[in-house]
């Protein structure tokens, strides 16, 4: 058993104290000296100090009332009809500061009142043990035993068994009924709007992109043609899988595996981070790296967007591109991998 030396109780064995001869009459442990003498406050003994405190408390309450007025005035002063930022700031401040005065005034007044004027004699209340007495516990146990006995459940195992079975499966409908909260994923995590022949258009203008528009060191943010708010597609959902970027590298910089899908040094990749789906949009022109701002996954364009730092694992899937007869860029196939975060069935 852990040796505990409880305060105030005598204890026979106290290893640290064995060597110390205990003089007669000296107790085991120190005694609680009891509540210290009450120290009166200034307001308790000095009439003028009490009066001063009273005035201070009242002043806070009056300040609160002033604040209420300020709040209401502030509300009506600024109409906020096509407001400028300055007007909104003034309105916010007036109403807010008024509210602060209203509340803080009452609060400080009440607390100051309690601190200076209300009696501050420390009072003592006895605690009762939370644990019940043995008699009460025995009584309670008996009551429960009687109750169970009277229910007869012990004598009727059939009832018990069938009740148990019923209760066990009763919550199942709650789970099953939630099934319609969403469809099964099916194929949708892997399929995007990108396919052979789909033009690349710029985000957000929706202008098609010429291969010659893209100079060395620039980045174009693109979407599949036809993906607009008014289209029949689930706009944001498809955008969240199809958003892509096009960058021009030197032809010699394009990775071996990326060559077939590239066009004269232009490479396109999915913009959706394979870690947690943020937009990998930070393009560092000098190092040819793509950085995701969420968790700093870094992808190397010269290595087919392989991950070189951070928590992502899979490379960004390449979007194979070519040009049509007018020189506009288009996709020559779907993404060379699943865009976005990994999931169990990814394979």
């Amino acid at each position: 058993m852990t040796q505990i030396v409880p305060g105030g109780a005598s204890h026979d064995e106290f290893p640290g104290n064995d060597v110390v001869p205990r003089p007669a009459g000296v107790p085991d442990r120190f005694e609680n000296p009891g509540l210290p003498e009450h120290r009166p406050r200034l307001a308790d003994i000095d009439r003028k100090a009490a009066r001063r405190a009273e005035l201070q408390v009242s002043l806070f309450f009056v300040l609160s009332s002033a604040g209420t007025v300020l709040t209401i005035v502030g509300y009506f002063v600024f109409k906020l009809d096509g407001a400028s930022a300055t007007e909104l700031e003034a309105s916010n401040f007036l109403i807010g500061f008024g509210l602060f005065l209203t509340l803080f005034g009452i609060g400080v007044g009440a607390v100051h009142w309690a601190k200076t004027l209300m009696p501050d004699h420390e009072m003592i209340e006895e605690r009762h043990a939370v644990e019940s007495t043995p008699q009460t516990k025995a009584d309670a146990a008996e009551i429960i035993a009687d109750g169970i006995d009277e229910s007869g459940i012990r004598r009727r195992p059939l009832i018990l068994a069938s009740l148990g079975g019923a209760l066990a499966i009763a919550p199942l409908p709650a789970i099953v009924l939630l099934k319609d909260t969403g469809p099964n994923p099916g194929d949708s995590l892997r399929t995007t709007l990108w396919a052979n022949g789909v033009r690349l258009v710029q985000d957000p203008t929706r202008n098609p992109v010429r291969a010659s528009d893209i100079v060395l060191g620039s980045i174009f943010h693109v979407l599949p043609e036809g993906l607009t708010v008014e289209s029949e597609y689930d706009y944001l959902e498809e955008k969240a899988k199809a958003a892509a970027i096009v960058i021009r590298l030197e032809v010699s910089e394009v990775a071996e595996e990326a060559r077939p899908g590239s066009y004269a040094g232009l490479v396109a990749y999915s913009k959706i981070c394979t870690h947690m789906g943020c937009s990998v949009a930070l393009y560092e022109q000098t190092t040819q790296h793509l950085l995701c701002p969420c968790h700093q996954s870094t992808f190397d364009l010269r290595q087919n967007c392989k991950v070189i730092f951070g928590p992502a694992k899979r490379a960004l899937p390449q979007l194979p591109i070519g040009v049509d007869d007018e020189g506009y860029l288009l996709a020559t196939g779907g993404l060379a991998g699943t865009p976005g975060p990994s999931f169990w069935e990814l394979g």
Partner: protein
Amino acid sequence: MIAIMRHRRHRLALPLLLLVGLFAAGLLYSAIVPRAVASTEPSTAVADPDNAEQVAYGRELFLSNCSTCHGFNAEGGDVADGNQVSGPSLIGVGAASVDFQVGTGRMPLQATGPQAPKRMPQYPDDQVKAMAAYIASLAPGPAIPEDRWLDPAGGDPGAGGEIFRVNCAMCHNFAGSGGALTQGKYAPSLRDVAPTHVYSAMLTGPQSMPVFGDDNITPQQKQDIIAYLDEVTTESSPGGLSLGLLGPVSEGLVGWVVGIGGLIACAVWLGAKSS
């Protein structure tokens, strides 16, 4: 004994002294250290590569200030290849690049590091324009933008905001407060940047920044971005102090320090015995 020295053993004497010392040091620092000023105010000077006098003047300036890194003919080089100089070639970078780099004080490069920081510009605007004219005369490149594209009033901040969020916010932050890149590089704050430098930076793609040619972001769109930045950086924050417009990190810091700190202070006052 001076009157104030009577209080030298007061328990607040040391903290107060520290505060005075800190304040004095800060004051001294701000008085001595040159403040990074906004980029050079554009003057009426124009960089004209056909103006032989300006080009010659620019060449002189270039030779004495820039050639040690960029080569006598601005051809650049790399020490690794056995060259004497180590700096990128400036042939074809255009007047806009020079106006941006030199006009914002990034060049001449003060010290090597992950990135050239913005500093106090080292040359008056007419000299900057002269150097720009010289570089522009070497080979065609992006020109300094015309004034008509630079007036925030001529741009739509709404359209600018949309384009800014797709192309710029990921590096520079939604309000242009700046952001981190890898290995110590960063996208600087866009506060107090002259419209001409905003435009030139987009056009020339300095350091890690991509090049946003006019086929990518059209001149009107660039002007829209300038209008958006003007609004965001000069407009007051309607909610009160902007807290740097850095997002939840600064808000959390303030919430803890001011909110919890302040409330604990109130609680301590509440629990203390009145005198």
